[in-house]
């Protein structure tokens, strides 16, 4: 598919999609949204990129290996953060009790572990959804 309109429109809106996706991921502890919702929006940007510029372009941007790394890494990051609570003597996935700084309520860097967890989930979901799309699209 080689369509000029699609390419130009994609070039204009993809940055906005990505920024919005990041916003939703990073503000998961402050407003509705979070890792999954934001990750899907991020992946939406990748999918649009693949549709407008073709599969090879996406493959060079997000190689299979990197996607697999992000997918596993996202959950490993989550588990690792959970284990911090275990090591500091409280419970798995403990937040303030495990020593995560809570910050000032309402600011971006607050919520302790929640902020970090959302980050991992966001990356994982973005990688997973784009991999799903890629695997299903392969046939062409």
């Amino acid at each position: 598919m080689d369509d000029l309109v699609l390419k130009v429109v994609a070039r204009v809106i993809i940055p906005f999609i990505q920024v919005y996706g990041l916003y939703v991921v990073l503000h998961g502890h402050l407003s509705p949204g979070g890792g999954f919702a934001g990750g899907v929006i991020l992946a939406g940007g990748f999918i649009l990129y693949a549709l407008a510029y073709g599969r090879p372009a996406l493959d060079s941007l997000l190689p299979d290996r990197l996607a697999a790394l992000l997918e596993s890494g996202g959950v490993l990051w989550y588990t690792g953060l959970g284990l911090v609570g275990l090591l500091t003597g409280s419970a798995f996935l403990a937040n303030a009790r495990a020593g995560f700084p809570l910050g000032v309520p309402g600011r971006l860097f607050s919520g302790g572990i929640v902020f970090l967890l959302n980050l991992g989930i966001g990356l994982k979901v973005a990688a997973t959804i784009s991999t799903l799309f890629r695997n299903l699209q392969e046939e062409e």
Partner: protein
Amino acid sequence: MTTHLVVLPILVLLVAALILPLVREPRRASLIGVSALAAAFLLWLALAFLVMRQGAISYHLGGWPPPVGIEVIADKLAVFFGLTVFLVAIPTAVFAGVDMPAEAPEPALSSFWTLYLLLVLSLLGLAQAGDLFNMYVFLEISSLAACALVAVVNRPANVEAAFKYLLLSTVGSGCVLLAIALLYMITGQLNLAFLARELEHQAPLYPKNVIGAGTFLLVGLGVKAAIFPLHTWLPDAHASAPSPASALLSGLVVKVYVVVMVRIVWGTLGRAFFTLLPFKSVLLLLATISIFLASILAMAQTDLKRMLAYSTVAQMGYIFLGLAAGSRTAFAGAILHIFNHALLKGALFLAAGAVIWRTGRRRLAELVGVGHTCPLTLSFFAIAALGMVGIPGTSGFVSKWFLLVGMLQQSSPLLAWVVLISSLLNAAYYFPVIILGFFGHGTDNELRFHLDRIPPELLLPAGSLALVSLFFGLWPSFPLHLAQDIAHDFFL
């Protein structure tokens, strides 16, 4: 004091399952898989020891106490089922290390191990879940991983069976979620203990919600546990899956939904529930039909693994029969049968897998005389098959005995007949395989006896499962006492 042992086995398996997709060599994938299972098993043994000594442990994720936080429970039911899981999953994993490279293409191997570990951890999670939210999540992980294991081998029959399985189990999950919604509407709780407390007041006020929830639970878990009208997916899926996956699916996965049912229906919904709707009678009827229909269909099969799959449907019928019979002894028998059948069916599928690996044949007609080429494997098969029939001395005898005694105590001889007559039916389809295997003359007229030319990694798992089940048939006190304790805790 919280003890982290409750969550550690699941975490070990999770981390290993996530590292596996990054490993490129299949040889190392199976090594990681088996060692992760072994590590988790050791942790689980420590947990089991702790639970036996000081009773049930409740773990609060993140330190948040229950109605707000997530509760993970390690009680006797969880420990019992977890031990069953590891006893079957570890030999099966050893078997898979040699068998899978022969069955699946190389790129599929690492995903096989990821799915295998995810499936095992979801079974542990389901047994330990203390609230409906977690239960639903693990329910979905288990059904997705199970479906995916069927289709790891990309053959037409597998893909088709996996699709059928996926559709039906999604309907099942939908029904379970609907039941959760109906319960949440009237109680506002998802934690099992709080829900049970709240339900005592609310059930008389909103009987329709409770009746709806019960019906949807029965249908939802019934699909997944393959009870009579909802069993149609099982023979296709379990017969076409690669042999180690069949052992896991038939031995463990269908049974975890019984554990879930015991926890929700008997442990939470309680007495009010049984007075509101004829749950037990319906279960009894369906279980009886399951037993007879599946046994008769098993006799009609021409494929070895398909026959074993139908036998699973029949054996699930026994478990439901024991749960619903209304006697504490039969309840304990049903719980014990979960353990025994898991070991026996695991042994049967692994032995069948080893025979298929050696001869490449799986039609019953072609397996005549197979005892001449694989005498040891067929002996293990025979031990497990005798256990299925319930010959004294095997573990199947103990659980069937408790079912029978329970039913006679309940003065329902009709149900006792169901167990006895269906045992005859079991014999009718298992014995021909063994007798013809050892004494029949095969097509290739290979009459000379020689020991199995099968690698020990295939032979030992099948053998160890068969011998362990034989051990627990002769000295059943450990699982039996555990099952009786569980019956004491949950029976209503």
